């Protein structure tokens, strides 16, 4: 058998030294190992936090989210919708008071129907049912085009658009957080 070169011998010696080292460490008790780590300047508990999880270990439990919308968007949408609902409530009250003052009419009143539809739309928006909300607003717009400019409707429209755009679909009803 040909003799090994010094480089090869050194490599084997270093390999065996490492094996011996590992064997010696493996024989240590848990307390000894922790003490040895501390002596080397390492906090054993802190070090373990950086250890990758054991294979097959359960994944850390994450809070399930019902919406894929980023939190910032959700907050912005929620705030917009709160404003819209408040404005709509004021408008509804103003309309109602004015109607009480005016003589009661008979037959079909487009403005009143549009107002009802808008109430239904706001209620749908409140339940995060964006598609029904939009269709009710569209119906109301056909009956009462000027009402489309009211702040409540504008904000409701914006909330619907935001919701449908962020969820990437117009066929589903995304839910607001907490719903």
């Amino acid at each position: 058998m040909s003799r090994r070169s010094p480089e090869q011998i050194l490599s084997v010696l270093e390999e065996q030294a490492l094996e011996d080292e590992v064997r010696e460490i493996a024989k240590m008790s848990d307390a000894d190992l922790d003490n040895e780590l501390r002596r080397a300047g390492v906090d054993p508990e802190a070090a373990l936090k950086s250890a990758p999880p054991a294979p097959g270990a359960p994944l850390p439990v994450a809070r399930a989210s019902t919406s894929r919308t980023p939190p910032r968007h959700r907050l912005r949408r929620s705030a917009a919708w709160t404003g819209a609902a408040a404005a709509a409530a004021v408008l509804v009250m103003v309309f109602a008071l004015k109607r009480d003052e005016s003589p009661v009419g008979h037959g079909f009143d487009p403005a009143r129907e549009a107002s009802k539809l808008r109430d239904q739309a706001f209620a749908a928006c409140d339940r995060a049912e964006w598609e029904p909300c939009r269709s009710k607003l569209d119906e109301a717009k056909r009956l009462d085009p000027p009402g489309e400019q009211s702040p409540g409707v504008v904000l409701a429209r914006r909330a619907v658009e935001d919701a449908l755009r962020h969820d990437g679909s117009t066929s589903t009803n995304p839910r607001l957080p907490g719903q």
Partner: protein
Amino acid sequence: MIELGKKEWDRLFKEVLMAALRLTHTKDEILKATHRDRAHEATQRAFERCLRIRPANVDSTEALRVYLVKAVRSELSNAYAEQESRSEREAAAAIEEATHGRSATASAEVIRLDAVRAQRRSNRAARAIEKLRRELATAGDTIALGTVECIAAGQTEPAEQAAVLKCSIEEIYAARKRRKRMLEKILEALDDGEEDA
């Protein structure tokens, strides 16, 4: 690959980290923190590599321990090699680029540097082994010296060395410890001398 519970896995992480700390041990107070960080990082990378590759032949805790420690050593040597050669290679690349322009193949300067480094490694090993043989002989440690000769002849296993040297396996392991301590001192002296030179 063998599956371990969290307790065994944590214990293994600490063992491998300890081995990494010993591999990177330095007496230089200024470098201690850097070496500690390097040991920690190498240990994390070794575990991540193990989880990614999931070596099929690792079927016991002992085998996994050895695999991880070798992975740590590999990570450390890569880190050292990168650190050591970066400035040299950058300098060589700058000269080469200024002379010949950019090239996809290794430049003459880089090839020469690799050859110089290989020669340096070979000289270091030759001097270390020669010194180790001399010191073991001076100390009269025939078993430790015998293990070095056995390795030179291709006999690396403790059992075959024990048969050749007519002693017990325990005596072989004890001799390995003495040999290791002596080799560490020799390498340290050689590396210090190289840095001073």
